């Protein structure tokens, strides 16, 4: 019962998202679709930053690889079957995450941050300078993936609304998947690793294995986001995996509130909407944007969603009367 009440805001948000296309214009549906994709991307990074304690500064690599796998495999195809394209993208991202993760998790701290960055930069330059995959021009896709039932494509992703629901389903499914994983034994272990890896090892866990699996899951989900972005925009180029994208993704996770799953989704809404509307205020909008991020880091390190309990507290306090005295911590 209380679980239901606690998840009320989430359900309400989900309902709002489900109903949104009925009211929003095509442009805004497209915009929110993009936000959903970015939210999924950030959600995947939250598994690393917020739960496993791995600050990956190269997460955009998997986002890009998910999109590139789709684009490279199907750039000349006359039809893109979803059941081929999607697993391919996920597998490519997972494989890349396995390799990068295997190398990176041997290091820690600053070195981990820089190594993940370096690995992502390698992928960036590989695609940037490879004539076969379009170089910096990137690759266009003129078709959307189809899911044929009989002779009918049941997805019709070229319709903005259909794509929206497709992206929303992917986000919700990923959210639930992560929720499940985090409640399962595996999730307990990675959270403990974040809190105190040394102790987890001393308890008998091979922590590098858990970190690697977490890295691969996060990479795969980022690949899913990249796949969606590739489908949505029909265009993929190396800048999707630039270090700026990785940086923005970190900003989204922290701004929303890391280690909360819903935080990154809120963060994606905040950041993308800011990026969308700040330029209309001033030509020097990046000054504001940078300022906002700095303010969050300094004053709201647990992210925007950390305000929510405070708000609730503020609303409730008058009704609840006296608060219980804080129990003394020590004798």
């Amino acid at each position, binding site marked *: 019962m209380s679980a239901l009440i606690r998840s009320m805001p989430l359900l309400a948000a989900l309902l709002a998202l489900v109903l949104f296309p009925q009211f929003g214009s095509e442009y805004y549906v497209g915009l929110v679709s993009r936000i959903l994709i970015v939210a999924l991307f950030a959600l995947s990074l939250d598994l690393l*930053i917020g739960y496993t304690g791995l*600050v990956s*500064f190269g997460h955009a690599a998997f986002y890009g690889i998910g999109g590139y796998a789709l684009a490279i495999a199907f750039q000349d195809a006359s039809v893109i079957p979803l059941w081929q394209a999607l697993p391919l993208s996920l597998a490519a991202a997972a494989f890349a995450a396995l390799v990068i993760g295997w*190398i990176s998790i*041997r*290091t*820690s*701290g*600053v*070195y981990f*941050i*820089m*190594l993940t*960055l*370096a*690995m992502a*930069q*390698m992928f960036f*330059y*590989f695609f*940037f*300078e490879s004539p076969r995959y379009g170089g910096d021009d990137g690759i266009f896709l003129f078709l959307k993936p189809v899911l044929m039932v009989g002779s009918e494509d049941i997805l019709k992703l070229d319709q903005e609304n259909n794509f929206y629901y497709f992206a929303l389903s992917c986000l919700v499914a990923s959210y639930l998947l992560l929720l499940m994983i985090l409640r399962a034994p595996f999730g307990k272990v990675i959270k403990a690793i974040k809190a105190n890896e040394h102790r987890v090892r001393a308890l008998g866990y091979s922590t590098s294995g858990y970190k690697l699996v977490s890295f691969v899951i996060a990479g795969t989900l980022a690949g899913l986001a990249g796949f969606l972005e590739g489908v949505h925009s029909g265009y993929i180029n190396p800048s999707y995996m630039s*270090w700026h994208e990785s*940086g923005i993704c*970190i*900003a989204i996770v*922290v701004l929303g509130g890391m280690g909360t799953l819903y935080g990154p989704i809120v963060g994606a809404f905040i950041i993308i909407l800011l990026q969308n509307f700040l330029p209309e205020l001033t030509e*020097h909008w*990046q*000054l504001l*944007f*940078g*300022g906002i*991020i*700095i303010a969050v*880091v*300094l004053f709201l*390190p647990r992210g925007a969603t950390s305000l929510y309990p405070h708000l609730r507290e503020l609303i409730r306090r008058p009704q609840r009367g006296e608060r219980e005295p804080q129990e003394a911590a020590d004798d």
Partner: protein
Amino acid sequence: MELSFYLVQLLNAVQYGFLLFLVASGLTLRFGIMGIINLAHGSFYMVGAYLAYWLTDLTGSFWLAILLGLPIALGVGYLVERFAISFLYQRDHLYQVLLTFALILVFNELQQILWGTDVHGVVIPEILAGSIPLTDNQSYPVYRLFISAACIAIACGMYWVIQKTRLGMMIRAGASNREMVQALGIDVNRLFAFVFSLGVALAAFAGMLAAPVDSVYPGMGENVLIISFVVVVIGGTGSIKGTFVGAMLIGLVSTFGKVLLPEMASIMVYALMAIILLWRPHGLFGRAV
């Protein structure tokens, strides 16, 4: 290609290495001693270059520009440390990455507001404008030699300050045991603010020196940012010696990479970094933390 070709390339590599060292040394100072990841390091490089351009334009003298620019850079560094970085010493690297990432955006925009979007050049001062013949058709600009000399001077100067002066001892001591330094009566906060500002000034100085050979343009800092991180990480954070070796390694690999394996040139430095970290997870001269 004949031997002289490779010798000239070697000269190029070493010279590039020197410049990298100059940029990266400020980074490693803060990295190793204060444990701060500063992504805005490239921005300070850019600030330096713009200061060189602006002040040269204003005063008519490159030397005067450097003389005036350095205190400005120190001041900028001090303000940034006071109002942003100093809150982050006890926090996770994640927040440092994010805050300094945001600083990049802010500095880029400030640069644009202050100096506009044009590409600028800085004229090489008269006495360094000549060049020395190297091969029958190629000569080497004196100014580049000057940069190398300046870098050597800075390297020696840093070595001297860090190794020989009391300030250097305090800095090194602060890196290993902050609390004990405090207990010996030293204001660690001021010490750190100074070290940070010094790092900023070093980056700005690198930008100033590079301004006449590089051009001065928006976003120029980001070109040097990642590569200086690679240098620092390869060398091992906090080790001046490591940074020097790292800079030389990158200079060599990137210069000869361009000549011998041009398709892989951009990837090579990152691959080098990955290999070195696989072999030594704390860089060549880094300490396990």
